[in-house]
């Protein structure tokens, strides 16, 4: 069942083009020049109930703007969207009761008060029945290990603790759709892992549809089977995470553990030597030549061990971003969108 659908979703902003210098600033008082920023350019999406989808893209790609459009915070310049049967920017209460938004860089809990007081306010705003409210609050705070922090002023908590409580606040009304905008930004690995595990468990239990933006590939790899890559306001890839590797990674990393004394430099003829920590040598080999390279290495060297793997995910993603940024117009009609849905659940 499709819970979220967009067609040609577009958002343009007109911004003041500030010129450098005092004279230009004075001139700007009388006459200003504006330019249009195309934050989101014709995004077409369909998300099924219970999917956990990651939005990937460089800074300014339009990920957060898309989430803001879908949560009705801003209105689009063009295009349509329906989430749970509602048009988000109509801001109907019937819709706003069914989704939640968490932003890693903004907080909604009252800064000087304990989270328990903000939770009570949420209960009133969402009209949550008392027993359900207490049950949900206790369940979520126990899973996240923050139950003992409910009575401490939010300003005295660490970033990780605060983020966990922000998540609890957002989930108190049991939303069917959850928009997460970089929920683990700035957190240490322990807090990141804890939030990842929580989201995984929560999504499995309640089948919530979740859209996540994150720059941490570990979040994405741990949680999302479907990835949507947005660059310059357009979707350039929609499919599984492994599909990105197959589609965009042009190389493989061959790691060889040598057992003879022959110089590692000789391996350069099979590919680019990435690192040498004798006797371990890593070579980047173009995908089509991997078989040939392995045969050659085995023939010319005494090899104790050999393995072939994909390059690090971050590296591939950087490649996807830079490739898409170089040719952003290519997929303006949607024709250039790389589809990998066959690999997605």
């Amino acid at each position: 069942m499709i819970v979220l659908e967009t067609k040609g979703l577009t958002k343009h902003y007109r911004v003041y083009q500030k010129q450098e210098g005092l004279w230009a600033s004075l001139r700007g008082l009388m006459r200003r020049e504006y330019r249009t920023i195309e934050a989101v350019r014709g995004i077409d999406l369909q998300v099924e109930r219970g999917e956990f989808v990651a939005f990937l893209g460089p800074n300014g790609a339009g990920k957060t703007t898309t989430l803001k459009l879908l949560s009705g915070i801003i209105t689009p310049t063009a295009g349509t969207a329906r989430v749970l049967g509602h048009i988000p920017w109509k801001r109907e209460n019937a819709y706003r009761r069914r989704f939640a938004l968490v932003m890693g860089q903004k907080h909604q809990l009252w800064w000087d008060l304990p989270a328990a007081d903000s939770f009570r306010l949420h209960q009133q705003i969402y009209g949550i029945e008392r027993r359900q409210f207490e049950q949900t609050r206790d369940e979520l705070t126990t899973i996240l290990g923050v139950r003992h922090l409910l009575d401490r002023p939010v300003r005295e908590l660490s970033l990780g603790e605060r983020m966990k409580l922000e998540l609890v606040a957002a989930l108190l009304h049991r939303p069917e759709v959850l928009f997460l905008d970089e929920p683990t930004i700035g957190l240490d690995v322990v807090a990141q892992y804890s939030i990842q595990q929580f989201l995984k468990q929560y999504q499995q239990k309640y089948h919530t549809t979740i859209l996540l933006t994150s720059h941490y590939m570990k979040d994405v790899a741990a949680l999302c089977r479907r990835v949507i890559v947005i660059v310059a306001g357009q979707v350039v890839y929609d499919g599984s995470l492994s599909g990105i590797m197959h589609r965009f990674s042009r190389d493989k990393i061959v790691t060889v553990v040598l057992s003879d004394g022959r110089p590692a430099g000789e391996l350069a003829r099979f590919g680019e030597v990435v690192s040498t920590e004798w006797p371990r040598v890593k070579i980047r080999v173009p995908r089509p030549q991997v078989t040939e390279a392995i045969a050659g290495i085995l023939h010319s060297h005494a090899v104790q061990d050999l393995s072939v793997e994909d390059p690090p995910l971050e590296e591939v993603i950087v490649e996807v971003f830079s490739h898409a940024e170089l040719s952003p117009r290519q997929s303006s009609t949607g024709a250039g969108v790389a589809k990998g849905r066959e690999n997605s659940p």
Partner: protein
Amino acid sequence: MGRAFRVILTCARNSLVRELMFRTNFIIVTAASLLWVCANIAFYLLVFQYTPSIGAGTGWGRSQFFVFFATGLIINSIVHSVFMPNADLFSERVRTGVLDFLLVKPLDCQVLVSFERLDLSTGGNLVVGVALLIFSLIELGWVPGVIPIALYVIYVVCGVAILYSLMFSLAATTVWLGRNQTLYDFWFYLTIFGRYPMEIYRGPLGLPLRIVFTFVIPVLIVVNVPARLLIRPLYPQTLPEWGLPLFALAATAGSLWCCRRIFQAAIESYRSASS
């Protein structure tokens, strides 16, 4: 409606808890605002040492003026306690993008924005205002009946509503301006005209001001109407005198309507700050 009221009560409770956490700050701000009120009262007492009334034959003697002053104090302390912190917060939220969270809540955004915070440190002024009002009425020997008191309360609410509308219309402009640091200054410049009885606005300079601040930006009727209703029964009444309360009701409705439209237009234009 019931849910909105419960939310407002919870916000008030949270604000109270928050204020009491910073006890010293609360005491200092309360003392400072009381000092300001006392300085004002002392100033007007000094003025009335030199003149029996504000303008000859206007009816605004010392006690009458202090009824007017007390009414202004009551209205302004309500506005400053309830709406000023929220107007400030709204501007800040627009600038930082934290308004996003209020827009996704299943409650009228204007209700949340208007009542979320409560600054009780200016509440002391309200107590002083009520005390001064009672004292001045006693001094006048005037014991108002139920109807004048009811009308007074209604028109105090109207006055608060007019000032609220003006304040939030100004605050809403932050959405277009991006930054509105002069909100309080601008608010002060406009409302200062409503601090004195209408009768002072006479002649070629006063009359245009009286027209503008009665019919265009109706700050002049905010205090004048409830204060006059309470003390004017002592004096002969004319048709224009009764036209003013009727106009005040229309002005209140008009102000709230304008404020609502400006606020909604602002929210439609809201761009949300980058995260």
